[in-house]
């Protein structure tokens, strides 16, 4: 009984640690962990292994909220309008043109995408890009509820990230530039 309690406590404590850490200098994510850009669900042979989870960022409330701060500070709202989409695609639905895995989103921010998404390589330090990645995933309900952000102290047009419904991701895999419908 006592042993069980001790184990339960340790598990609890560990879960808390991961979620609550305020680690301003986390270990950098190794280059090899970042998968290549996925343009399509179709792949020869087996499906590629799913990318590693970046728990430093995606399972940590502070990193996610830092991402939220940066999302505003770096004017992501200018095109993505709080995740709802404007001249940039919405981020809170289930459509992920260039993939929903953290590595995909990282690559999207770092390299840019055709038709408007600029490359932020060298302009946003890697650590902050990972914070943005974690936040972007939370917009579609892809992070744990106890990690997602609460409402902001501003005029709130939509529910906070923690009350957004989870949207199971579907990689559309068709860049708009390839469909020919875009100018």
């Amino acid at each position, binding site marked *: 009984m006592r042993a069980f309690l001790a184990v339960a406590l340790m598990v609890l404590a560990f879960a808390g640690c991961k979620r609550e850490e*305020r680690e*301003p*200098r986390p270990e950098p994510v190794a280059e090899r962990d970042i998968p290549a850009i996925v343009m399509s669900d179709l792949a020869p042979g087996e499906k590629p292994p799913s990318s590693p989870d970046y728990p430093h960022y995606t399972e940590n409330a502070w990193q996610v909220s830092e991402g939220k701060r940066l999302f505003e*500070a770096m004017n992501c709202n200018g095109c993505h309008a709080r995740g709802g989409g404007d001249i940039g695609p919405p981020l809170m639905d289930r459509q992920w043109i260039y993939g929903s895995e953290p590595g995909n989103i990282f690559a999207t921010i770092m390299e840019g995408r055709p038709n408007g998404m600029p490359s932020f390589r*060298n*302009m946003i330090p890697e650590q*902050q890009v990972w914070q943005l990645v974690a936040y972007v995933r939370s917009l579609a309900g892809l992070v744990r509820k106890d990690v997602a952000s609460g409402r902001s*102290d501003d005029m709130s047009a939509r529910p906070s990230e923690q009350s957004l419904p989870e949207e199971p991701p579907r990689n559309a895999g068709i860049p708009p530039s390839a469909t020919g419908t875009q100018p």
Partner: protein
Amino acid sequence: MNGFQSALHPAGPQALHIERLIWLFTGISAFVLLAVTVALLWAVFRRRERRDLAAEPRPPELRERRLGRVVGAAVALTVVLLFVLLTASFATDRRLLDLEGREQLTVHVIGHQWWWEIRYAHGEPARRVITANELHIPVGVPVRIELTSPDVIHSFWVPNLHGKQDLIPGSSNAITIEADRPGTYRGQCAEFCGLQHAFMAFLVVAEPEETFDAWYERQLAPAREPGNDQARRGREVFLRSACVMCHRIRGTSASATYGPDLTHLKSRQILAAGAVPDTRGHLAAWIADPQGIKPGARMPITALPPPDFQALLAYLETLE
């Protein structure tokens, strides 16, 4: 450097009024404490015929009335002293307002997590100075400080000049300060505002009016054109790295307002809101590892190749 951030070393009329009040309160308090302590010691140590727990508890006697008179007198004296203190407090409070309405200069101070943005108000937009963490004021001139916060509650406090005033998001407060002798005074955020509350300091530099005017003119000027190749390369590094996303250097295309304005970085005495002095070595350390110096600060770690890093430093050194 003692007294560089202290309520007991007033450098302005308001801090002086408050300091006098501190000493008045301290004096009366010391008197009361002494009186009570003496009375206590006398009460317990005066000679008694018998001290033990078996002693018959003494029923109240005729002495009660005499005791009652003494206690009554002590209470009356307490009330009188409290009235004296209350009156002094109200009088000082009124005096603190003396400067209000006579201000000749208005400065907006904006508290950020965890640094101070300072914007001098001026009728002409072109003559508004923007700087950070260092407030210059002319000696003998009442200055109105308008306080706002975009994030959490901070508190503006320069103990040598005045008491504190909170910066509350969503509303604005103001405080008037005046320095009556030149000098540099340290101020600090006084309301807990998160991880780096301890390093949210700023300096107030009080200087004669001519010196202040000269400083103001220098601050108005855009950044100087870098004089050598190294510095020119540094500017390029600045403009195509993460620096440009948050900082502004007037005279270049860097115009972000998220972090402190760096146009005249080297004219300031402190870096990172008081975490380190503004020297080349500390600047290098701050850019290379801000999170080691001030964990949790908004300045990210930017990995720059060593030659770029040196060039950037050389450029920043020219921002005087």
